């Protein structure tokens, strides 16, 4: 048939001829992802004092025995395992209970839970940890002071500077993403699968155990591994809570090796340790990837309209509501209120009536008068906007090639874009530190020490997220829609502009906003790349001010930052992005 052989040009190209555009994108991604990792690996075999001293003659195996024979390394390994396992357990269990409550029970006020839990995304790990230090540090924490001064306890009630404290705070921080991932998991399950068990004579408990749980298992394990990777990666929480008490995990130890390098150059060792860290993260990611591959075969979704049976809570009604409220208070309300309080008092002290009468906005004016604040704010805005825009555009270009083109290396491109997902921020920062110093040495430019160094690291970190979401979004747009435009006489670029872009707009904006949200919160990589005022972003400034004991000023900045982030999260919700955000992973 004649119509069959007609080939609409569109975005498909002759297989034999490489499209220069595809090749360009491929090369850009290769340089961004592969080169820093290669340099990181090379650096781990070098005894150069500084990355700039690197020559082929400095290659040695000495760094690895150094790291592996140090008993401290095993201590770190132990701490990391306990911390990651604990935080993941806390985060995933709380999220699972919340998701089950909203999806499968008769709990009231569901819309508030759907809206409220993701709000926790707006509480950066850095500020969450700091708020809990103010509340529960052993000597001056409000809770401990109250217990000792008013209730007559001999010693501190709780100590946040412990592995337990880190697990608690990081656990809380993991809840919103885990929740967003689990809701669709619960929602997409066909209730007929459970009903078939009832009509087969299975009791509710037996059904829950043999059907519901087993069906959820692959998805549940995938969420758990994903959250474990995040916990492994995070620097801020162990940085604030672990480092003062000399409790180190991988991320903080790598940071310390670099931060101390001014006195005792140990870059090679930092790299060697980072390799181990990277290895753990890669193994975890591999299992995650295998699991989501497998779970795709579990086609539970049948596309019928579901009206899942809701479990009446009965006497558990109030405990369930209590649980939800407790989470909201601990994860969102309390940290915000603590920082708000701290930002308004003259000097930090436990709340009392006297304190309330002396409250002022003094620390806010202090912040605005503070010389470094203005430049930091400019840097942060520059960095955040550039990162979000580059990530969105680059992910769009990558996904378009991966999903729609016949480019030979599109699979490799997809995997390469996903790989940074497994690289912890601190390691990424270290890899780029080497890459920038080498780059600057050869070209005489000054990438290192400019805000663009931070932008580049974040771009690479977030394209994994960007392309995942973008792939899903593009897949949802049936190519019929574009073909219809083609046969209506629209040339490819008009099709892109008139049909494709308008349909993609919510995804593009959603990704952009989410990347803004992510990049403004993270301190790990920017701290590694910190080189004077021109690279200082808000998270870094908060970190250093906290270190200098300017807690009230930190609180004032934190309050303003959180208000901004709350607005962004609400904006994301307004875009209806919560679900696609969770599904894309």
């Amino acid at each position, binding site marked *: 048939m004649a119509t069959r052989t007609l080939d609409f040009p569109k975005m498909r190209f002759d297989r034999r001829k490489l499209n220069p555009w595809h090749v360009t994108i491929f090369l850009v991604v290769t340089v961004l992802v592969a080169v820093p990792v290669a340099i990181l690996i090379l650096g781990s075999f070098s005894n150069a004092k500084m990355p700039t001293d690197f020559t082929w003659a400095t290659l040695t195996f000495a760094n690895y025995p150094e790291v592996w024979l140090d008993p401290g390394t095993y201590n770190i390994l132990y701490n990391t395992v306990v911390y990651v396992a604990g935080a993941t357990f806390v985060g995933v269990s709380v999220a699972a209970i919340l998701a089950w409550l909203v999806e499968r029970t008769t709990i009231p006020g569901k819309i508030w839970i759907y809206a409220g839990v993701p709000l926790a995304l707006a509480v950066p790990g850095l500020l969450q940890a700091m708020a809990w230090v103010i509340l529960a540090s052993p000597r001056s924490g409000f809770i401990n002071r109250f217990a000792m001064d008013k209730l007559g306890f001999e010693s501190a009630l709780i100590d946040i500077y412990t592995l337990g404290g880190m697990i608690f705070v990081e656990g809380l921080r993991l809840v919103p993403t885990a929740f967003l991932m689990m809701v669709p998991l619960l929602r997409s399950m*066909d209730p*007929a*699968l459970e*009903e*078939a*068990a*009832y*009509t*087969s*004579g*299975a*009791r*509710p408990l*037996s*059904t829950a155990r*043999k*059907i519901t749980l*087993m*069906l959820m*298992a692959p998805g549940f394990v995938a969420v758990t591994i994903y959250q474990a990777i995040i916990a492994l990666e995070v620097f801020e929480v162990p940085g604030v809570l672990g480092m003062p008490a000399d409790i180190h995990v991988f991320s903080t130890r790598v940071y310390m090796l670099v931060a101390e390098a001014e006195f005792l150059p140990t870059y090679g060792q930092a790299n060697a340790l980072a390799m181990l860290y990277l290895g753990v993260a890669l193994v975890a990611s591999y299992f995650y990837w295998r699991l989501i591959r497998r779970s795709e*075969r*579990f*086609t*539970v979704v*049948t596309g*019928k309209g579901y*009206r899942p*049976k809701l479990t009446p809570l009965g006497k558990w009604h109030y405990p369930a509501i209590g649980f939800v409220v407790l989470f909201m208070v601990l994860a969102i309300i309390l940290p915000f209120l603590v920082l708000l309080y701290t930002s308004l008092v003259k000097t930090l002290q436990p709340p009392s009536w006297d304190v309330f009468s002396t409250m002022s906005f003094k620390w806010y004016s202090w912040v605005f008068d503070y010389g470094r604040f203005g430049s930091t704010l400019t840097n942060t805005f520059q960095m955040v906007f550039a990162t979000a825009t580059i990530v969105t555009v680059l992910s769009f270009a990558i996904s378009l090639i991966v999903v729609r083109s016949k480019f030979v290396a599109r699979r490799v491109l997809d995997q390469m874009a996903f790989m940074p997902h497994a690289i912890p921020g601190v390691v990424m920062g270290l890899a780029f530190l080497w890459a920038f110093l080498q780059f600057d040495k050869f070209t005489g430019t000054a990438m290192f020490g400019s805000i663009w160094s931070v932008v580049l690291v974040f771009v690479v970190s977030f394209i994994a997220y960007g392309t995942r979401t973008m792939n899903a979004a593009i897949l949802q747009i049936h190519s019929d829609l574009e073909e219809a435009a083609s046969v209506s006489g629209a040339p490819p670029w008009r099709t892109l502009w008139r049909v494709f872009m308008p349909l993609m707009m919510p995804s593009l904006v959603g990704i952009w906003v989410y990347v803004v949200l992510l990049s403004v919160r993270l301190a790990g990589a920017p701290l590694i790349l910190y080189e004077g005022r021109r690279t200082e972003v808000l998270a870094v400034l908060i970190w250093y001010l906290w270190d200098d004991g300017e807690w009230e000023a930190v609180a004032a900045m934190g309050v303003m930052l959180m208000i901004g982030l709350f607005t962004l999260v609400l904006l994301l919700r307004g875009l209806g992005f919560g679900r696609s955000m969770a599904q894309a992973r």
Partner: protein
Amino acid sequence: MIKIENLHLSYQTDEGMVHAVRGVNIDIAEGQFFTLLGPSGCGKTTTLRALAGLETPADGEISIDGKLVYSGPKSINIPSYRRDIGMVFQSYAIWPHMDVFENVAFPLREMGGRMPKSKIRDKVLAALSLVQLDGYEDRPAPFLSGGQQQRLALARALVKEPKVLLLDEPLSNLDAKLRDEMRTELRDLVKRLGITTVYVTHDQLEALTMSDVVAVMETGLIVQESTPFDIYEEPRTRFVAAFIGQTNFVEGKIDAAANGAGRVGSVATSCGSLRCILPDGAGIGDAVSVVVRPEDVYLADQRSVDGDNMVTAEIAEIVFMGETLECTAIVGAETMRLKLHPSTRVEAGQSIKLVFPADRCRALAS
């Protein structure tokens, strides 16, 4: 065997309360193949789910094999898993994390008292062979074709030899050819087993070919319940007549009531006065629709006389279907569909005389 009395059921949707079942009464004899037929949203699936215990009715009584499983007044509600039923879902609901054997063994493992392994094995294999799935027991369930999943769902429903088999549109996800095969196969199987079967469908062909009794539902109520033959031949309402088979409607008013012989009277329509079977209790002047099936109409010949509902028509369109000649004819102000024998010589535009046999015309209150 199954008795449903005055069943009411409503549920909350995004658009508000839906009163899905509004006083349904059903009595099903042992071994009967009973079909609930109706368009989507008529409450047939909801009724079946209430029977299975998957929905909680608002009021009424349901008993299975003489045992009360639901009673509004007596506040009895036996959960699904304690009702002696087997059910096949529209989506089959095959558990993807189990293989074929485990899917079928599941109901047996859930039965009270430990069943010996060898006995479970025997029963599962017997059930699989019943649905011709022998040799598939180690296959992971998602690796079955649609038709095989359907058989597997059936084997799972039958394995514990329940008193009642419930089928919720089980054939609707199959392709046409497979559906034709499964129709007879399914009916033969349940008849051979002698199991009481409740079948839900919106497909009139399935209902007519498979059932002992068909109950047609409309907006939460059963509007007619009888054998497939009677449903087709003597539809009691316009809705039933229109839903099952092709039908011509001619609107009119009764102008002569039934006289002694049978219930045949006369209706004044735009095609002239038609003699037809009148509904019980109808009087002169009542507005009615006269129902004539397309296959009952024939061309007048020399033996036809005026008293035979003979009308003049003009053929508007002819479609040759192989076994029939489907024509559209203009009769007075009405357009009617006819099924004529394929050897009939007619052409579009031709004026012909048609006979509507009086004993095949049925007036229904409109």
